[in-house]
């Protein structure tokens, strides 16, 4: 299927009820791959539900759910290979899991335990893994975007076929980082995918108040690159557009902006009260009529690849796996207090050594 940039309506491969809307065969996906996609979405949602409960239980300080955006996260991350790099934001845990971060590591991150590769240094949503080339997200909205371009420039310099993807929200497109990042990448033809999860809100600010353009994708035009406006709740469409962008990057044909039009189910974060700004009925409409998981399940059922029994079995499996992973995180220990002074620099400076001695005395340890 010919996938076009700068469309007025989102690119779709599935109708809202799961009926095919495009040439799905052209994606070359096997039945097995389709089922893997589905399992990932179910898994990401289950992990996210478990993570959010931790705040309710008072065991974590913060959580930002990705629920509702599973197709955007999973569909795009599935085109990545081992050596590709990810720079995400605070709503990127789905792509991190697909890239290989263990759910146990994610839960440990939320709990602030040592099983977290980043040792609980950041509040939740700052995890990452050097082995998996997942750079820890920042809290400062937008500021991973130019870093991602730098990594892509380095990948190009090293003549690899690898790419870098960076995830950010619609709000982030108002930051200078977005514009500078797109411009740099276009000038250098860097192998980077700018993946905007447009969930239509930046905390309470609606898209119309964020930007005067109709789409975010069209901003790519100003930088001389293609921008694709895709239905972010249609995993096949997200996959198709991401694959196209990835192939283009690997072939040395430069960057792409993708706008995945989606919706978040939770409040902005556990610290937000979304009833103050969401119109009545909007959330219900998205949940019941546009849900990415339900939509894809309906497609699989239509293809006779799925049924109630399989669904039941999968839910049980995922539930057990999440419980297992959570148990591993729970038994992991919190970091030792003295490590607070480590990793500021490659080696502790004399000042940090002195401060460490001071803290050791305070703690009565050595």
């Amino acid at each position, binding site marked *: 299927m010919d996938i076009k940039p700068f469309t007025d309506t989102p690119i779709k491969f599935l109708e809202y009820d799961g009926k095919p809307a495009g040439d799905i065969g052209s994606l070359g996906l096997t039945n097995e791959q389709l089922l893997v996609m589905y399992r990932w979405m179910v898994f990401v949602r289950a992990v996210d539900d478990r993570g959010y409960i931790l705040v309710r239980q008072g065991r974590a300080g913060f959580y930002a759910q990705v629920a509702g955006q599973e197709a955007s996260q999973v569909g795009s991350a599935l085109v990545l290979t081992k050596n590709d790099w990810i*720079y995400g934001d605070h709503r990127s845990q789905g792509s991190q899991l697909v890239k290989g971060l263990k759910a146990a590591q994610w839960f440990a991150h939320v709990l602030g335990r040592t099983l977290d590769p980043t040792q609980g240094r950041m509040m939740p949503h700052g995890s990452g893994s050097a082995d998996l080339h997942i750079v820890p997200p920042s809290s400062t909205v937008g*500021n991973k975007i130019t*870093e991602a371009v*730098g990594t892509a420039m380095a990948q190009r310099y090293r003549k690899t076929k690898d790419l870098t993807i960076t995830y950010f929200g619609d709000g982030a497109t108002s930051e200078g980082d977005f514009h500078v990042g797109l411009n740099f990448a276009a000038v250098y033809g860097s192998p980077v995918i700018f993946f905007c999860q447009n969930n239509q809100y930046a905390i309470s600010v609606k898209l119309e108040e964020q930007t005067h353009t109709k789409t975010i994708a069209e901003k790519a035009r100003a930088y001389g690159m293609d921008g694709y406006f895709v239905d972010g709740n249609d995993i096949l469409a997200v996959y198709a557009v991401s694959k196209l962008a990835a192939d283009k990057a690997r072939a040395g044909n430069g960057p792409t902006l993708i706008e995945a039009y989606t919706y978040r189910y939770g409040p902005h974060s556990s610290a937000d009260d979304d009833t103050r700004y969401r119109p009545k009925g909007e959330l219900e409409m998205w949940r019941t009529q546009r849900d990415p998981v339900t939509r894809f399940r309906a497609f699989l059922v239509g293809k006779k690849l799925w049924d109630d029994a399989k669904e039941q079995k999968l839910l049980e499996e995922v539930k057990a796996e999440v419980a297992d992973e959570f148990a591993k995180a729970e038994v992991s220990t919190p970091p030792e207090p003295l490590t607070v002074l480590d990793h500021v620099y*490659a080696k502790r400076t004399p000042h940090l050594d002195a401060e460490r001695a001071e803290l050791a005395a305070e703690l009565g340890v050595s």
Partner: protein
Amino acid sequence: MATVQAEKKQAFTMVQAIRSALIDEMTRDDNVVTLGEDIGIRGGVFLVTEGLIDMFGKERVIDTPLAELGIIGAAIGMALYGLRPVAEIQFIDFLYPGFDMFVSEAAKLRYRSAGQFKVPMVVRSPYGGGVRGGSYHSQSPEAYYVSTPGIKVVAPSNPYDAKGLLISSIRDDDPVLFMEPKKIYRTVKSELPEGAYEVPLGKASIVREGKHVTVIAYGAMVPLAQEGAVQMEKEGVEVEIIDLRTLQPYDTDAILTSVAKTGHAVLLQEAPRIGGYMGEIAAFLAENAIEHLEGPVVRVTGWDTPFPYALEKAYMPNVERLMRGIKKTLNF
């Protein structure tokens, strides 16, 4: 003939010394790349990168669009990937558009990732007054950066140190802000040996020995301190000068040893006084050297104003101001 030339030391300006450090490191290690505005065919506005694009190509001498946010951000992304980028910011006053990237990201990624990621990058940038550059081509913003854990801050005072410190900075595994005192870019010359050498980070140097008072300085204030010392000598005062060279982490031993000997400390910087770098050194002395001090710790600094154009001379610390400071502590 060739060996004779190789052994012959040559006199280099600071600009030439820094350029020579870049050439040596880029020749040695192809992870070293440099990026910035006008650094390619123009050779940088101060000609530090003159000719480098012909030697190393545009893949390694990267002219960037005019966006410091992008220069610092891209350098971080390259460094995370394993390169050793040296970013040139045309004037340090224009690092502010990239400030967030530098202090929120470059400085914190190692810590935030619990040591999994490192950011071995250098930001080189001319700083300081005395060149009729007005408010935005003259500032000394080191205080912002030294108070951000995770960044190292270096400020050489002569061509020899500039080359050795830059090489150490490039080889260092942490982000370094390399502040180049543009006032003395071409006024001071040093003999440089052939080839690469390191001057270690975190180590001060005693550029003049004396027993009555210690003057602590860095960058373009070091030559001023030397002038002041010559004047004071005529009055029978022997000034010891410490050139800090690295501001973060700084050399506490050198400071303590000298002040224990002289009993007096004068702290010289061209940045404004309040919240300035020398406030840290003053506090360090108050905490650790009180038993040696025979007079007040005195700061000699620029005024607490934005940097002026027409009144630059009135702003900049000068020999008279320094001598007044020295006498203030000696006559206590």
